[in-house]
């Protein structure tokens, strides 16, 4: 019942946004046509005539603006999804380290969290791109021969090529979001009473299985809302891609506006792209949330 209400609410919200847009567009059209400009999306089918360094699907400058924008959207989606995954791994590890009795782990994660949260993301992205990757110059760094090599061209992992722009953005976003996720995880773990730790320990369970079977399941309801907002932040922060020259939706949009002068239409496209992206994330998290609540029948 509650889920249905939520769905209706979201649909109503979408409808309201569209109606509002329609009214705005209507006003705009009238004003623009007075100024001799036509509000329309027909230019989307004209050839884009600019190149994209990265495109998950085949693309050439003779393809349409629409296709170019879609490539940008896919590039955004790609970096967001991989960053969400990596940020979660970093965040969970660092959050657990922050609550552990191991002094070295605890200290390391405290330093990581502090440094990352006290410096601007833009600066960190610049660091990853210009210092970590381009800073390699002609050197190729090969930690695992034949498996992983890192150069100013990016990362080569098992035949998979990641550009230096993508890699810098991926690391920048993940390391940044990871610090915030670590704090969310730590808060969740601390919300579980110490009696639960003592209970599993006195049963002879090792720390790892106690964490996995006892502590984390009880921490999840406290972690997931915070995690969702960190995921949304990450998605929004991905628009800083333009700083390292990665062709995400925002960067492609920027080029499109410069070429066509279609600022209003382009911003509407950008808005809708992000609305869709974030609705995917929110709903995905809602599903996970419901799953964990189902396994936590004790409320």
């Amino acid at each position, binding site marked *: 019942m509650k889920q249905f209400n939520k769905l209706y609410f979201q649909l109503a919200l979408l409808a309201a946004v569209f109606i509002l847009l329609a009214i705005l567009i209507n006003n705009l059209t009238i004003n623009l046509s007075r100024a001799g400009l036509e509000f329309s999306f027909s230019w989307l089918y004209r050839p884009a005539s600019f190149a994209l360094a990265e495109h998950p699907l085949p693309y050439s400058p003779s393809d349409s603006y629409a296709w170019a924008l879609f490539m940008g959207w896919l590039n955004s989606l790609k970096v967001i999804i991989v960053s969400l995954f990596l940020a979660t791994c970093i965040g969970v590890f660092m959050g657990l380290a922050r609550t552990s009795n191991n002094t070295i782990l605890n200290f390391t994660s405290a330093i990581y969290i502090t440094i990352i949260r006290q410096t601007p993301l833009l600066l960190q992205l610049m660091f990853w791109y210009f210092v970590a990757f381009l800073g390699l110059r002609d050197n190729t760094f090969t930690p695992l021969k034949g498996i992983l090599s890192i150069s100013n061209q990016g990362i080569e992992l098992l035949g998979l090529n990641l550009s230096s722009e993508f890699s810098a953005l991926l690391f920048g976003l993940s390391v940044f979001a990871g610090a915030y996720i670590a704090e969310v995880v730590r808060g969740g773990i601390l919300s579980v*009473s110490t*009696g*639960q730790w*003592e*209970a*599993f*320990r*006195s*049963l*002879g*369970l*090792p720390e790892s*299985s106690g964490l996995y*079977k*006892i502590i984390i*399941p*009880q921490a999840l309801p406290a972690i997931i809302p915070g995690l969702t907002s960190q995921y949304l932040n990450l998605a929004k922060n991905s628009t800083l891609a333009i700083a390292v020259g990665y062709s995400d939706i925002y960067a492609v949009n920027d080029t499109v506006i410069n070429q066509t002068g279609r600022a209003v239409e382009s911003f509407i496209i950008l808005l809708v792209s992000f609305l869709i992206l974030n609705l995917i994330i929110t709903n995905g998290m809602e599903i996970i949330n419901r799953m964990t609540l189902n*396994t*936590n*029948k*004790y409320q």
Partner: protein
Amino acid sequence: MDHIAVRTKKLSKSYTQGLYALDDISIQVDHGKVLVVMGPSGSGKSTLIRTFNGLEPFDEGEVNVLGIQIDSTYDERKIRKIRKRVGMVFQQFNLFPHLSILENITLAPIQVQKRRPIEAEEHAMHLLSQMGIATHSSKYPSQLSGGEQQRVAIARALALKPELLLFDEPTSALDPERVNEVLDVMRRLAKQGMTMVVVTHEVAFAKEVADQVLFMDAGKVIETSTPDLFFSNAQHERSRRFLNQIEKK
């Protein structure tokens, strides 16, 4: 040595410099015996019994539990060995709220002792019916009364077939009318020859079940004696004052 279940030698611990939670404690509990620990709040009772299964590290002295010796260097391996053979029951029950009653009890036998799930479940059901709560096996802890939850906690501790059971004020969080259903279970365990260390202020229980009563104050053992002697003719003024106070309640 073989008849000793727990022995401490010059055991000391302080949380804050100069203030001792445990102060030079040397005690002994033999197999098959019941030791009741009494003392005012903050005297170190919990701290003492929690050193027996390594929940509480200590600064000086040594603790020998079931022949396994630990000292101030916190040896994880030895402590886990002890924990596999010692059960503990807490004041706040500490059942796992996200697991059913049956899962609460079978978790450690399956995970720690690698017993087959079917066998662990049969054993758990057997223990639950001994506790008179077999019908609750598929419920969750929050659906049970305090007394029922504490009996589940005892069943959970017994599921590992422990050689020693530690109780830290097992009835203090219960409604008065629920206290006896838990004490009855403990009485039965004592009759069956289970070695137990029990922190409690239940005088009737101590008189009936204890082989020894240990009285603590400010981290020190004030006196150790039989319940007969302790409750009729305590040696120390501090003990008599404490007994007067709990009788008034």
